[in-house]
């Protein structure tokens, strides 16, 4: 019994750290821009397919696949910011960019569906079948890799935000555009940087989750819906809260699968989301900010 609990904890952390990667991208963009890129999901999916394609072309070189996903993600982030968020900025609407990227998402998803079909792809990396046993527990090397890569990316990002000049500038923009201007930094460039980082993370998470989840054109969408929940539970724009909420949702998911019913996962996660909105609307780690009027 307790080994099941532990095993599910490991599974939960594996999935949760993937969710954190996806959600961090959303939260970064929200923190800086107070906007949502709905097509983030499809960057995840495209990252997964890019990794799949490159890994197969290079006969099993998964690391090259990961690099390709990172690059593709970054490029898409650049494109989406330049093509949609920049032109819409002066209109100052809260919802128009969200709606426009819903359009992009529909487009990308159905383009993938037309090209790649709905049948799941078997994405086996060289690490998928290597199993590590720890007593009664076991996990694949792929799982270890996921935890490692996610952990390192999260740590790097965290360090970048906290300790580098650019990272501090990013946080300054998220607090107040004008201050960032005073720091001698063009807010437009910073926003672009944020998009590129966030989308590269999305591509990366695609490459990591392709092998463990069902790889179809809808892979990203099923993840993004949970990522949104995580971002709200953690407090939109709050990095620490997102990490915490991501792991929490991962654990809830694996325990729900084990002890209740996999069909209930989304229901439980969104019940948690609604509960958060009702009890702590600003998220787990509350950061109350009053609009400067």
């Amino acid at each position, binding site marked *: 019994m307790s080994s099941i609990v532990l095993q599910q904890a490991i599974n939960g952390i594996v999935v949760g750290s993937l969710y954190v990667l996806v959600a961090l991208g959303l939260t970064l963009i*929200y923190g800086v821009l*107070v906007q*949502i890129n709905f097509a983030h999901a499809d960057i995840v999916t495209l990252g997964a397919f890019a990794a799949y394609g490159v890994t197969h072309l290079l006969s099993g070189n998964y690391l090259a696949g990961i690099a390709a996903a990172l690059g593709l993600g970054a490029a898409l982030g650049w494109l989406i910011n330049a093509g*949609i968020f920049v*032109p*819409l900025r002066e*209109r100052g609407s*809260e*919802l*128009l960019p*969200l*709606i*426009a*990227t*819903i*359009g*992009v*998402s*529909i*487009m*990308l*998803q*159905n*383009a993938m*569906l*037309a090209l790649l079909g709905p049948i799941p792809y078997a994405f086996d990396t060289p690490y998928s079948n290597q199993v590590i046993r720890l007593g009664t527990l076991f996990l694949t090397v792929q799982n270890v890799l996921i935890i490692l890569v996610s952990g390192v990316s999260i740590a790097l990002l965290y360090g970048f935000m906290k300790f580098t000049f650019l990272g501090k500038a990013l946080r300054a923009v998220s607090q107040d555009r004008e201050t960032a201007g005073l720091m001698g930094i063009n807010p437009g460039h910073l926003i672009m940087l944020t998009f590129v980082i966030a989308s590269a993370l999305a591509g990366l998470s695609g490459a990591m989750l392709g092998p463990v989840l069902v790889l179809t054109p809808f892979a990203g969408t099923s993840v993004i*819906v949970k990522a*949104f*929940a995580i*971002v*709200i539970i953690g407090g*939109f724009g709050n990095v620490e809260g997102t990490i915490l909420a991501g792991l929490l949702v991962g654990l809830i998911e694996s325990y729900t699968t084990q002890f209740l*019913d996999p*069909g*209930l996962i*989304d*229901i439980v996660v*969104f*019940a948690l*989301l*609604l509960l958060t*909105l*009702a009890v702590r*609307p*600003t998220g787990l780690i509350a950061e109350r900010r009053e*609009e400067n*009027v």
Partner: protein
Amino acid sequence: MSKTSPNAAAQSRERRVWYLIAAVIVAALPLFVTDSYWRTNLIVCALNILLAIGLDFVLGYAGQLNLGQSAFYGLGAYSSTLLVLKLGLPFWAAFAIGTLMAGAAGALLSFFAVRLRGHYLAIASLGFAVIIYQILLNWISLTQGPLGIYGIAPPPTVAFPGLPQIAFGDLRNLFYLTAGFTLIVYVLLDQMVHSPIGETLTAIREDEVSAASLGIDGPKWKAFAFAVSSAAAGAAGCFYAPLVGTLVPDAFFVSESFMILAMVIVGGMGTLVGPVFGAVLLTILPEFLRSLGDMRLIIYGASVTLAVLFMPGGIVEAFHLLRHRLFPEGEMR
């Protein structure tokens, strides 16, 4: 925009003329469209218009994105059907309850999120759409899950003394019922948006802090708009079930919300006629594009993005621009 024209009374008269024209069109359509395939399409059109004007009321006026229309649609469809099947309620009672339930669910949902920025409500309603879909899929003892509910009867026949009976198994009568209902909802919404309620909602859309400084209770009015929007979707759902005769969860997947959003955006949000055009276009057009398959949805996605970027007023704006081109010195509206 219309309020500033010198004569509000004339405009209100003009509106009533348009209602009349719309009623004549509704009455005449089944005379020209006689085969059952296209009559079914017309009914679907009417339901989509109902869904789209409902969404536009909350999106175009109050400035809040409701991505849960698919769920409220499903809630109306399943609850009314189950009330008839399991509790033996008469259709019209089930219809009223189904509509109210969807509206109440919308109000409750918005109650959670309206104090925050609009994004929260958008995401919370998206989450709600996911939950409802999953519940429809997994609560097999109630909904029969993916197998679906079959053989749903049309609304009961109406008989007025001295008049021929009206049976809703007849597609023409079902069209009159759904289109008539949609027209009534349209008129009521149109009257509301051209009343101080419209002013209040647009004030919230433009600037909520400023609206509060005029005594406007933002959360309350947003919840109101949200409830109206979801009740309209619920009512559409109540009609959907007897039209199709079958209920499966996939009809109420989240992508349905995006379709309705596309109708509003392409038609032109912030006017009620816009979504009507959008709904008709996006319902009828695919019938001609069947051969394109998945390309169809790619075109929808692209049209949403392009409309937001280049023609935020949608078809209605395009129409105005065109009129200006053709009649440059024509009256300004």
